[in-house]
């Protein structure tokens, strides 16, 4: 339970801090310090057991399906790392309180810092590697936000993005690696994984897992060639640099190397990959650090170098080296955090971090100088400081390493690295604090307030103490941690200032000597260095990202070019291809059903249809004529339905077709009538071929189905029950309003929505750009001045009631004979439309009695209520009932609830059709405004009225 609390503390702190965001900075600092203080207390409570080799554990189930549990596990290694995180974290919080200017949003800053602290702690404490991954990625994320905290500068933003891309990307590799690792081990619990080292190393997946995990570790720990992000992350406020980019986050990669050392280390692959990377990074980082001028850059590259050193140590694969690694990890955290804080103070007080503008500060800010000099000396590995100890031990380890058969290679490179390290450390001391005082500095440097230097002072004191009393201070800590890291096989840990004249001592002396010389001739070397044009990794990275974005943009715009025809073409091709593939791979046998010989009339109708279809295609730019040809096709299709026993279909087809044509005519009025040709011959050929393929496929599919015997279709049931249980002899209608009434309900809903959408589309058409276009619209056809011919208007008066009667008749007979609500609704609509055509929209619309919206709404509701009604009789929804009644005079008749449903259908249809056409007419009317006045009468020339007027 303590573990869970420990784990939660920083997150709770982050939450509270962000809620209290605007409180006084002292209060905020207090809040933000609490988790670390409390956490350290908890750690202290755990210390006796853990450092004695026990493992504290906490486990709660989270996602068992994934193998992801809330599992925490503290051994000595984790304890050490956690203590580092919390301890330095506490100091950083205090430092931040004094470092950040008053106007900064310190609440947000501290909250982010605590979030990071929690994530970091999570890495240390996770007992489940998937959980570890979560915290791992969280550190990348919170580091991104912390680096970008100074987001007003482009460097801050770029640095943040780069850090996120590299570490986040590495995290993705780590995900893959750890998943593989868990897969091999059969569990994602750290304990289980640590226990199955042999299985893992023997697995065929081991190389892949190793490489992936290493990518994760190397990116995080800024190993070559992923090192470039770290210096740019220094755009962050100095407390962040100190905390994330020296003491903790960058160590996460190394920590992970240590964590998985027992299961991954010990192979050739491990040795060459890890130690070589570390070695190269160490030397390269140190070299670059020597020639930087920004204090933080120097420290950053130094960090890179030291991380390389650590990596190399773990790479050697020997327990002793690993132990040295753990020791140096601690030491480095102490002096590097102190140095960052120190550099921050200089920046704060002197107003610049450029080492070339500084120098001789020792006299001006003695306390700062003292702290800086001691810490830098530790970094240089000078006795009697902590850095010296671990460096000696490191040199000792490297002295015996054989790399690809070469005994001298690693020692030589390590000495060079060490020399460079001495050089830049001394440069920090001499070029910053010692030497000549400048006549002026960007600001007037003086020692800062106690709060700002105290945290670093504590660390400096610690590094001194480690150096002086190594055994007393570290044995109980480092040895168990190393034991934990190496799986309980750590050698005796004997840090001491004096080991006698060992090879390491010699190497160390050489390194110091060379380093001193380097600093002495620094000006010369610098000029030499400046002439070398090293590839700038940051620029390469930026160029890489820019290339990627460019590629993405090119691919995206090329593919998504906005052509509708490309989309349709692809759809057709895919459909044809897959359909054909289905038949091809599935197996096909031709059908055996007898065919019906075609009479001559049918063949002629067929020819007509082909001719009309050809005419539509050939004359498609003569838009008006194509509509006439389409009417012919509609006519033939209707005749086919009649001939082939589908009277309902014929009725529907006939009435739907005319409404469609009217719609198209209404739209065509305002559209171009004979547009120019846009497509090339090649394209028309291509489209023709796609069409041919599609047509052939569809035709063959139809043929294949028609010529095989039906497979006992369910409609036999419909036929048998239509009259007996559906109360109607028109099986199609009974199917529509009863067996499959729910389909019909959906269908009228579609129609209603279509009308509503048309309404919504056309309502604003008379305003804005569209309205302007309408007002400026000039009829592109010469128009007769007569709007409403007399004969037609008179005929419409008679035809409207006649057609309405027919509509009623068709409606009533629908259940038993061809007909029904939909057709009836269309017939009535067509009759109304005829009236509109004859006497004009405005005149007719004034006489219209029902609102179309209401019709649609009521229609849908009536249909739904009819379906719902059956519930009250204890029957399922949409259950219909019917009965035969008999009244005197009238005789026997049938009443069915399905008819009520059909009423809803008819109402929706009328409402929808009328609404759509009314809106279209309304729009067209806007284009007519200039063309004479609106006329009042139902016909233009009414002889009776004219005679009256003349009389």
């Amino acid at each position, binding site marked *: 339970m303590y573990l869970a609390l420990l784990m939660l503390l920083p997150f709770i702190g982050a939450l509270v801090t962000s809620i209290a965001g605007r409180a006084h900075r002292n209060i905020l600092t207090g809040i933000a310090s609490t988790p670390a203080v409390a956490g350290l207390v908890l750690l202290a409570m755990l210390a006796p057991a853990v450092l004695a080799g026990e493992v504290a554990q906490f486990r709660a189930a989270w996602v068992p399906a994934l193998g992801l549990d809330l599992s925490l596990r503290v051994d000595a290694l984790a304890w050490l790392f956690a203590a580092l995180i919390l301890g330095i974290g506490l100091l950083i919080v205090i430092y931040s309180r004094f470092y950040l200017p008053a106007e900064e949003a310190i609440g947000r800053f501290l909250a982010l810092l605590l979030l990071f602290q929690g994530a970091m702690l999570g890495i240390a404490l996770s007992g489940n590697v998937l959980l570890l991954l979560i915290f791992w990625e969280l550190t990348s994320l919170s580091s991104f936000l912390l680096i970008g905290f100074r987001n007003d500068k482009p460097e801050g933003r770029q640095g943040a993005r780069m850090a996120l891309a590299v570490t986040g990307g590495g995290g993705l590799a780590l995900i893959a690696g750890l998943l593989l690792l868990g897969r091999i081990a059969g569990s994602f619990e750290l304990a289980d994984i640590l226990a199955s080292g042999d299985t893992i190393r023997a697995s065929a997946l081991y190389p892949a897992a190793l490489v992936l995990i290493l990518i994760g570790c190397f990116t995080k720990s800024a190993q070559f060639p992923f090192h470039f992000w770290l210096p740019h992350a220094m755009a962050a406020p100095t407390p962040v640099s100190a905390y994330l980019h020296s003491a903790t986050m960058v160590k996460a990669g190394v920590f992970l190397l240590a964590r998985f050392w027992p299961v991954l280390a010990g192979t050739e692959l491990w040795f060459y990959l890890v130690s070589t990377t570390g070695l190269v990074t160490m030397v390269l980082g140190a070299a670059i650090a020597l020639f930087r001028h920004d204090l933080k850059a120097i420290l950053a590259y130094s960090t890179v170098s030291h991380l390389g050193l650590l990596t190399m140590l773990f790479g050697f694969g020997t327990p002793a080296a690993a132990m040295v690694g753990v020791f140096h990890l601690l030491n480095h955290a102490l002096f590097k955090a102190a140095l960052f804080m120190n550099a921050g103070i200089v920046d704060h007080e002197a107003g610049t971090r450029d080492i070339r503008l500084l120098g001789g500060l020792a006299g001006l800010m003695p306390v700062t100088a003292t702290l800086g000099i001691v810490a830098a000396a530790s970094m240089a590995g000078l006795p009697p400081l902590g850095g010296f100890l671990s460096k000696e031990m490191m040199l000792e380890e490297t002295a015996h390493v054989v790399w690809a058969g070469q005994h001298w290679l690693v020692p030589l490179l390590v000495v060079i690295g060490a020399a460079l390290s001495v050089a830049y450390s001394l440069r920090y001391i001499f070029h910053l604090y010692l030497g000549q005082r400048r006549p002026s500095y960007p600001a007037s440097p003086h020692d800062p307030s106690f709060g700002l230097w105290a945290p670093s002072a504590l660390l400096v004191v610690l590094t001194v103490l480690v150096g002086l009393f190594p055994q007393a201070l570290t044995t109980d800590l480092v040895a168990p941690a190393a034991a934990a890291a190496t799986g309980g096989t750590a050698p005796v840990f004997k840090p001491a200032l004096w080991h006698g004249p060992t090879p390491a001592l010699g190497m160390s002396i050489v390194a110091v000597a060379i380093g001193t010389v380097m600093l002495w001739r620094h000006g010369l070397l610098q000029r030499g260095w400046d002439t070398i044009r090293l590839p700038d990794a940051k620029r390469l990275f930026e160029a890489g990202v820019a290339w990627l974005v460019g590629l993405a943009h090119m691919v995206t715009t090329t593919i998504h070019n906005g052509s509708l025809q490309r989309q349709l073409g692809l759809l057709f091709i895919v459909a044809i291809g*897959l359909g054909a593939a289905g038949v091809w791979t599935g197996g096909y046998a031709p059908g055996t059903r007898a065919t019906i010989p075609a009479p001559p009339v049918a063949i002629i109708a067929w020819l007509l249809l082909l001719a009309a279809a050809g005419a539509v295609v050939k004359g498609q730019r003569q838009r008006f004529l194509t509509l006439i040809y389409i009417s012919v096709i509609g006519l033939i299709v209707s005749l086919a339905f009649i001939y082939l026993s589908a009277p309902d279909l014929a009725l529907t087809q006939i009435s739907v077709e005319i409404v469609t044509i009217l719609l198209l005519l209404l739209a065509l009025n305002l559209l171009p009538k004979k547009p120019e040709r846009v497509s090339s011959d090649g394209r028309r050929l291509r489209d023709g071929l796609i069409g041919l393929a599609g047509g052939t496929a569809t035709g063959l599919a139809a043929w294949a189905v028609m010529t095989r015997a039906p497979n006992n279709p369910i409609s036999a049931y419909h036929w048998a029950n239509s009259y007996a249980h559906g109360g109607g002899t028109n099986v199609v209608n009974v199917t529509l309003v009863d067996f499959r009434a729910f389909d019909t309900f959906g269908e009228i809903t579609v129609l209603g929505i279509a009308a509503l959408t048309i309404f919504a589309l056309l309502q604003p058409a008379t305003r804005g750009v569209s309205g302007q276009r309408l007002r400026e619209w000039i009829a592109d056809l010469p128009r007769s001045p007569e709007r409403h011919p007399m004969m037609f208007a008179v005929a419409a008066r008679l035809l409207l009631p006649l057609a309405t009667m027919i509509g009623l008749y068709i409606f009533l007979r629908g259940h038993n004979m061809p007909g029904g609500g939909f057709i009836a609704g269309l017939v009535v609509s067509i009759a109304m439309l005829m009236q509109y055509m004859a006497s004009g929209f405005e005149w007719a619309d004034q006489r219209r009695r029902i609102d179309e919206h209401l019709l649609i709404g009521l229609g849908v509701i009536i249909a739904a209520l009819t379906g719902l009604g059956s519930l009250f009789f204890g029957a399922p929804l949409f259950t219909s009932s019917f009965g035969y009644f008999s009244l005197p005079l009238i005789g026997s008749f049938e009443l069915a609830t399905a008819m009520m449903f059909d009423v809803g259908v008819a109402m929706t249809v009328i409402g929808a059709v009328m609404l759509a056409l009314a809106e279209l007419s309304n729009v067209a009317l806007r284009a007519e405004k200039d063309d004479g006045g609106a006329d009042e009468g139902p016909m233009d020339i009414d002889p009776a009225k004219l005679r009256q007027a003349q009389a």
Partner: protein
Amino acid sequence: MMDALIAAPLLLPAFAGTASLLFWLRYRWIGAIISIASMMGLIALAIVLMAQAASGGAIAYALGDWPAPFGIVLVLDRLSALMLLLTALLGFAVAVHAALTGLDRKGWHFHPLLQFQLLGINGAFLTGDLFNLFVFFEVLLIASYGLMLHGQGAQRLSAGIQYVIVNLLGSTLFLIALGLLYGVTGTLNMADMAVRAGALPEGDQGLLRAGGLLLAVVFALKAALLPLHLWLPRTYAATAPAVATLFAIMTKVGAYAIIRTMPLIFGDAAGTFLLPSALGTMLLGFFGLLAARGLADMAAFGLIGSTATLLTAIALFDGHAMAAALYYLPHTTLTAALLFLTVDLIIRWRGVEGGAIVPTPHYKGQGWLGFQFLAAAVALVGLPPLSGFVGKLLILQAAIPSAYMVAIWAFVLGTSLLGLIGLARAGSTLFWKEDANPAIAADRPAPRALEALPAAFLLILLAALTAGAGPATAYMEATSAQVFDATGYVRSVLGPEQGGAGR
């Protein structure tokens, strides 16, 4: 009576839609209230139904009292209950958002269309009949056309016409597929079709498979799979972002239909085509996200990529992969929705530069939006702590036994990196970089914190999905098992005597 509750998710929006339509001229706020209330009702219903579904096998409800293969049945199982809940949650967020931001007053009939859209979607999730599925596809499509065009403008209209026509052709294909399937099997009921498909003679198998593949094409079109995804970016980028929020569920309707029909009736033949296509789509989606110069574009491509991730898992047609996919499904839906809502608020609140990814002067509410954007980005890329991480881990794990494991891992992780880079670039430009150049208009409506409520709601849902990943994955495992238990489905629909399901 209790059984009839299955149909309630259809009847409620139907009535609410028509009711809010009746207030179309005046008192439109009543329509909004009806709509929001209906959404709340739907959430409650979905929870009840989910509990019902989780307590046993699939439940069939025969409409019109006609026995199963002959009439239309509604089938409630874990999968459909899950989809219902997700839809209702999303619908609620969108309805509230539209009411708060005044989107529903920028054109006609927003709330009725929204309700009908939910009717269509819910219908598609509940029906056990293939033709009825077509009908509800049409309902949801036509309502989506209306919603997509809501507010109009040149860009929306020209994108809309593409959206409409592409989907009309999709419907045409659907009908061809239906025709083939009825012609060969003689039935429309999915369970019955599963039984009959298994018993078809060798010579009919080709037509059956052709029908199945055509269906898959239709569903892939809806799910925006390469090369049929071209309609999505323009559509979603051109419509009102709040509408796109709702549309986040639309691609999932395609995914749902694939999950529902393929294992039951056609086996996993479609997977051969789906998997490479899903992988390609994923890459293109995240490429598009990286290349996007507009917020809505970015969100739309993000949606494509993340839906493709989902479909990758589905295309494996394997129990664990399906469970992973099912967990990822609500995640990706909510994430895309959150992203679109965030885009909407950014456009509203910053008041300059519209939807372009460019720096603007600091504005009120920027901090919160930055947080919202960060959350959406984290979820989309699949970073912890949000559910995307769990989802992606599940998918990666489930892919291990697959022959395509390396490809799947490479694509899933690689596209995550692309997304990470793209979203970091966009986010830092939008929230860190400042540009005083385009001065904020003085008459800009002051951002109201209230408008962020729906987004916060989605965020809470995402958090809940993460925190409750354990129970959620358990539910999905069981759902996946149910999806592949064709026999169980057939027995539930056709009755216990129907033992041998086809596949």
